[in-house]
């Protein structure tokens, strides 16, 4: 028996197939994962993401602490509710986790980290907090739900109170607003528009029911994975981990090198890596032959070397198999994949396959 989110009974009522996910009882799908995927590309779907970990960073040195802790620079956050994606690195430049940090005030930031990395993240964050006047505390009061798809915002708004509806009016991408105990962010993990909403656990069920009434379809972890992969978004533990630097994980854009005197954890290692030359990169693959790309397949790059797939699936939108792979830096625009002993050609693309319902490859 795993941990249950405040939406657990909703999943059962909706016919969710419950599986263990990092100690949580979560819905894999509610029937067909592929239909749920299409719903998010074409209409509006909702995902229970309450298993993710919310951490409140408060205190006079909250900003200085996060400027040391994160590879991206929270100094970029100037307006209340603005969000930033960042890696949290170790001293060797390896990715401990990827996360989103929201600016609430100079002495209050809200950080959302992965569920699977909760304990090590909290330990690391507490350890690094020691020299700072800062409190780092997990917030367990919230349920969290992602509503995603071209119609997600319109439908989710129908489920909100009047005050909340006016609060989200004109809400920018990667921004959040606090209203009547709901923390509503225009973020997501699907490549579609939508919200990720934190709300009091006690209001989880009624809000879920209002979303159902507004025509939002429940979607499980299965669709969440194919959607994020089509969107070219990394999955922690698959596409990067502590042994991989952000420079090898298509996360170079999340490293804030300026100002040069900001001594964030991992900076020295990344600088050394850059100077000596980054040896590998994370690319997108589109399979040209038959089969399905899965994680941990061997990638053969003729005349260059070898790599490995880190994620793979059959893309429901493209109806072709796609994947992510870590390959030698010199890899060109085609590779061979070893699928059950046979070499199958694949095209190398920028790791972003589908955005806002449109195929990009």
């Amino acid at each position, binding site marked *: 028996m795993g941990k249950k989110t405040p939406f657990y009974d909703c999943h059962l009522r909706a016919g969710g197939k419950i599986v263990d996910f990092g100690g949580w009882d979560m819905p894999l799908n509610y029937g067909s994962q592929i239909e749920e995927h299409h719903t998010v590309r074409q209409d509006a779907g909702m995902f229970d993401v309450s298993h993710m970990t919310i951490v409140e960073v408060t205190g006079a040195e909250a900003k200085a602490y996060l400027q040391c802790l994160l590879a991206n620079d929270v100094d970029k956050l100037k307006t209340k509710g603005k969000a930033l994606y960042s890696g949290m690195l170790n001293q060797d430049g390896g990715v401990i986790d990827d996360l989103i940090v929201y600016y609430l005030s100079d002495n209050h930031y809200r950080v959302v980290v992965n569920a699977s990395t909760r304990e090590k993240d909290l330990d690391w964050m507490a350890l690094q907090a020691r020299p700072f006047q800062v409190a780092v505390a997990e917030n367990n009061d919230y349920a969290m739900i992602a509503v995603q798809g071209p119609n997600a915002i319109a439908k989710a708004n129908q489920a909100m109170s009047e005050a909340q509806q006016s609060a989200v009016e004109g809400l920018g991408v990667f921004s959040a607003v606090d209203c009547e105990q709901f923390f509503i962010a225009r973020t997501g993990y699907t490549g579609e528009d939508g919200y990720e909403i934190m709300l009091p656990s006690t209001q989880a069920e009624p809000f879920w029911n209002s979303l159902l009434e507004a025509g939002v379809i429940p979607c499980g972890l299965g669709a969440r994975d194919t959607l994020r992969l089509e969107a070219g978004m990394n999955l922690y533990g698959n596409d990067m981990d502590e042994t991989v630097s952000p420079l090898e994980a298509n996360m170079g854009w999340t490293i804030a090198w300026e100002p040069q005197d900001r001594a964030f954890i991992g900076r020295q290692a990344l600088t050394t890596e850059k100077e000596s030359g980054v040896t590998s990169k994370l690319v997108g693959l589109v399979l040209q032959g038959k089969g399905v790309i899965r994680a941990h397949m061997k990638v053969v790059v003729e005349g260059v070397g070898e790599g490995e797939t880190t994620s793979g699936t*059959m893309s429901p939108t493209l109806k072709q198999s796609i994947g992510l792979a870590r390959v030698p830096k010199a890899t060109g625009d085609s590779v061979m994949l070893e699928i059950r002993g046979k070499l199958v050609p694949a095209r190398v693309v920028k790791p972003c396959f589908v955005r806002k319902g449109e195929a990009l490859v």
Partner: protein
Amino acid sequence: MSNVPSDLKYIASHEWVREEDDGTVTIGITDHAQELLGDVVYVELPELESEVAVDDEIAVVESVKAASDIFAPISGTIIAVNEALEDAPETVNSSAYDDGWMFKMKPAELAELDNLLDSEAYLAEINE
């Protein structure tokens, strides 16, 4: 509750076998198997005319979740494959026992058919 027709034979790895009137057999995966797999996205069929031995891995079904091997339930020759599955693999989910059949074989030894499970034995197997 999974559908397990009583007129078919089975093996424990979730393939079904139908004995046809002309002495050939048709093979697919069970309703229980398609349910476990989830949405099927790709089927790799065996080679036509190939000779296979019982328990050989001769085909692959890939779902959104994972790839799983299909085993030859008996020895013999592959005499037909369901090419329609190449374009519509989801047929395995929607019609596991009919349109979702995978291949037909000419048995090498009819006696091998006696080693297959009947519906009751297969049901007992999946309810363990």
